[in-house]
């Protein structure tokens, strides 16, 4: 096997660290939300890969709940900033 599961997991970890860099130095709140969306998607992929590698089905439930919480978090943050811009 040329491209094993370990290589994919560690490369995705490095990619998500770069996305966290975008969260840290994003100038506007929307940039930070873009970084959060990207990190959420990559951690979802990492969780599914670890579940397939170790053979534990419980991590798939964790991945599903993580996807739901990431979406609801994006929704709540954007609602907060939209309402804040409306009042000004």
């Amino acid at each position, binding site marked *: 096997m040329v491209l094993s599961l370990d290589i994919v997991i560690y490369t995705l970890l490095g*990619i998500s660290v770069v996305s966290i860099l975008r969260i840290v130095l994003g100038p506007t709140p929307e940039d930070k939300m873009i970084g959060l969306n990207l990190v959420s998607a990559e951690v979802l992929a990492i969780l599914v890969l670890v579940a397939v590698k170790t053979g534990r089905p419980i991590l798939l439930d964790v991945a599903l709940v993580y996807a739901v919480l990431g979406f609801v978090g994006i929704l709540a943050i954007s609602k907060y900033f939209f309402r804040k811009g409306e009042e000004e």
Partner: protein
Amino acid sequence: MIWVVQVLMALGLFFGVMGNIGVMRFPDIYTRLHASSKCGTTSVFSILLACMLLRGFSPMTGKILVITLFFLITAPVASHIIGRCAWQRGVFPWRRRRDDS
């Protein structure tokens, strides 16, 4: 079957790296959103599809299928929410400057 899994994993890694380069290099919210939404969705979808093919016909495949369907519904909606929030806050799209003439 194993070559299909290899090709899908390599495609997922390629699109993930390209999306991150785009998010780090592009100058504006909307261009970064363009890179993030398309490349992120394609990368995660390819990797989940590769996991489904690797696992075969088992109960884990059903759970990964549910996660894939949920991700395919919510990822474009989240990107659209971010773009709409930026547009309604009054962020103007980036233009190339012309003041060097």
